[in-house]
């Protein structure tokens, strides 16, 4: 890996004469003891795409929320279109043409798309006229930008990708000239992300200004014009994208060199540890989400499950980990039938040597209101080592947590801190440490690096490889194709509850996998690649 380029062109502020969309001067924001933004200066030229990168908790979202009027800066000045402004609340921001797509969507789950779009932007006391107008307007936006969404569908029925389009539509519907996107691709498939970028380019061509926060340096390189790096509440550098490199950005972010590629030895697969036959699983509403899936994972290998979100991955993870009963089919662990029978099967499976890193750490893998040490034993609290009989040995649990903290470099190193107060990356490490330190035979991992900064990604990837090399069977589900390709020894593609193909990560190319993920079967894929050599 190259050293940091020393001769990069510094462009902390756009060149004179260039018209500025926004300018932030000396912005400060504290949350109690946390100094989330320190003396931030930032200028973004009109008609450009400006990227912001930084570790978890660096203060990116906070800064953008201040610009959007959701938070108030403790001090500092905001200039929009050359004029100093005060932004009391989001409606001020909207009036100034600033729109924001938040990291955590600000949608009302049981509203329709239309209702969400007009919320707060209604024209009259009665809804009807606004709804009609929004329907026309959304049609136009769909035509102009290819932002198609079923406007009468309820949000909770939409995929995350679609939900995100709704967020963008909300901003555009309100006439945003400056669009802030906070980690928009964290939950998108590569295809969805590509589509988003096409939309963003179109918007830029129309003269709109875009600020993009992301952890994916590939995206920064691909689409931004300028990029700022944040660390511990400060902007450490603002650069022209053309004059930098992912390696340089990574180093600026983390403060040390980061290996952006996973290094691993050849796998040495052993006996089949996890064996799934004809698994059929339904979701809570009774819809079949897995329609006869068979697969196996051997000791010492990583099986990657690729696929667009919503094709049965969640149900697969839940069924394998004992959280969801199967309608039919069997799951064998070490040859033993462990298909879930009741809502305590997850505990049983854990004791038989299966560990599960869930897709969604906040919703499932952690109790954010618990202290760190309490989360360190979630799922394992009834082991004898954490107390005899009824009682819970708090000391033993704390000791365990302390071990995790040291081994996984969890920060802050405090077992008695509420988990909610850890950054996303560190929360993920708490989960990983808990599941990996049990020394399981089989590890099931869902979206291990979602929303996690690159320093943490590197660490997490290395841990997973280490597990494999220690002879564990690992099943990895991720919507990040890069991640799947980098980590897996074998890849299967899940589409609409079926396994539609298997690929070798060393030989499979992105296009081939992309087609499989879109539901084009392997044979069809072969044909289409013949057709377009």
């Amino acid at each position: 890996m190259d050293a940091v380029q020393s001769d990069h062109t510094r462009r902390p502020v756009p060149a004179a004469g260039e018209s500025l969309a926004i300018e932030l001067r000396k912005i400060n924001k504290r949350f109690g003891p946390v100094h989330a933004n320190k003396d931030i200066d930032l200028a973004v030229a009109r008609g450009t795409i400006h990227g912001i990168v930084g570790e978890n908790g660096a203060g990116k979202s906070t800064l953008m929320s201040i610009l959007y009027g959701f938070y108030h800066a403790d001090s500092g000045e905001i200039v929009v279109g050359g004029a100093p402004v005060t932004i009391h609340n989001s409606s001020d921001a909207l009036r100034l043409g600033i729109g924001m797509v938040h990291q955590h969507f600000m949608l009302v789950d049981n509203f329709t798309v239309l209702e969400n779009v007009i919320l707060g932007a209604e024209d009259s006391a009665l809804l009807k006229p606004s709804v009609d107008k929004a329907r026309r307007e959304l049609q136009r936006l769909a035509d102009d930008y290819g932002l198609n969404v079923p406007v009468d569908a309820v949000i909770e029925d939409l995929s995350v990708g679609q939900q995100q389009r709704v967020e963008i539509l909300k901003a555009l519907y309100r006439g945003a000239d400056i669009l802030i996107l906070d980690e928009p691709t964290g939950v998108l498939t590569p295809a969805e992300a590509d589509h988003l970028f096409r939309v963003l380019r179109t918007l830029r061509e129309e003269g709109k200004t875009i600020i993009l926060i992301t952890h994916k340096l590939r995206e920064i390189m691909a689409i931004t014009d300028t990029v700022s790096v944040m660390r511990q509440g400060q902007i450490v550098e603002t650069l022209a994208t053309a004059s930098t490199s992912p390696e340089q950005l990574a180093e600026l972010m983390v403060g040390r060199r980061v290996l952006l590629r996973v290094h691993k030895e050849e796998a040495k697969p052993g006996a089949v540890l996890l064996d799934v036959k004809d698994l059929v699983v339904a979701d809570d509403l009774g819809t079949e989400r897995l329609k006869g899936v068979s697969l196996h994972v051997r000791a010492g290998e990583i099986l990657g499950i690729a696929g667009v979100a919503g094709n049965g991955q969640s149900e697969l993870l839940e069924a394998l980990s004992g959280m969801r009963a199967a309608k039919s089919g069997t799951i064998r662990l070490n040859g033993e039938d462990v298909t879930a029978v009741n809502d305590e099967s997850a505990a049983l499976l854990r004791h038989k040597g299966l560990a599960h890193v869930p897709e969604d750490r906040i919703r499932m893998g952690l109790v954010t209101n618990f202290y760190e040490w309490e989360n360190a034993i979630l799922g394992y609290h009834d082991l004898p080592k954490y107390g005899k009989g009824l009682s819970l040995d708090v000391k033993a649990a704390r000791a365990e947590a302390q071990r995790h903290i040291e081994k996984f470099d969890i920060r802050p190193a405090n077992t008695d801190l509420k988990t909610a107060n850890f950054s996303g990356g560190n929360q993920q490490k708490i989960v990983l440490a808990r599941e990996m330190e049990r020394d399981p035979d089989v590890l099931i991992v869902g979206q291990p690096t979602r929303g996690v900064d690159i320093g943490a990604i590197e660490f997490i990837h290395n841990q997973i490889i280490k597990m494999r090399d220690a002879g564990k069977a690992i099943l990895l589900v991720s919507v990040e194709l890069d991640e799947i390709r980098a980590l897996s020894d074998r890849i299967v593609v899940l589409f609409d509850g079926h396994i539609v193909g298997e690929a070798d990560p060393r030989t499979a190319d992105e296009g081939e996998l992309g087609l499989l993920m879109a539901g084009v079967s392997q044979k069809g894929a072969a044909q289409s690649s013949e057709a377009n050599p």
Partner: protein
Amino acid sequence: MEDLISILVTTIRVSTPLILACLAGLYSERAGIVDIGLEGKLLGSAFGAAVVAAVTGNVWLGLLAGIGVSLVFSGIHGLASINFRGNQIISGVALNFLASGLTVFLGAAWFGRGGNTPPLSGGARFYAIQLPFARELAGVPVIGPIYSGLISGHTILTYIAFLAVPLTAFVLWRTRFGLRLRAVGENPKALDTAGMSVSWLRYKALAITAVLVGMGGAYLSTAQAASFSREMSSGRGYIALAALIFAKWKPYPALGACLLFGFLEALQYRLQGVSLPVIGPVPTQAMQALPYVLTILLLAGFVGRAIAPKASGQPYVKER
């Protein structure tokens, strides 16, 4: 037929305060504020209405006073749960205690009747009103009993209660206010980031709650009974709350739940002392428990999981 009509007439009367209180609860809970203080608001506004009606001799002023009392209660509730981000349940419990203490305390101080207010009569009470042509149609078969017997002949508050149901549905689903109301109870952040004030909207919802429950309270003391007496709300606020959950926070089902409850209550009055074919005489208490037992059975059998507005009960906090 006549029996049925008369049971239904009782049903309507018994349901009226429940409907008003239940819809009242609907507005605040849709806005994300749990209102276990409905009971206290009913009691407080029953008191306010009776006091002012007794003093002025004007029931409309009484009604305004009843609403005024519940507005004050809602204001306290809002202050506690919106501004100070307090626990909404404690606030509600406190209001219930406050109502039960203050009404009797003040009533005793003012009227010297141990908290009861003087009996109301004449212009100080709401009376049943006859709808147009009720008398003329009374003799007509089917229509007569239904129109003249069942629909006509209630107080204005009953008609307001029933009209409030479609109005609420309209407000909820057809108006800008309703859209925002539903949004603030589900995801207040969505509203905040769309540039609207969560607090202000919640206060508006609480004000509507106060108006409705205030009418419910006034109904108790100036329409159904003709004076205030201590603890006269006797659990109706809790029943309304239960009905609201039963109805999954929706206006028409709320009407249904309150009517069902009123009907079971009316039926229970009829069935007391009745001897059933096989079982023989049934204890009065068994009949009296009937509405509650049936509610539980219905709930368990048919209604299924009630999912509250997601943000309800939680204060809106921007910064951790």
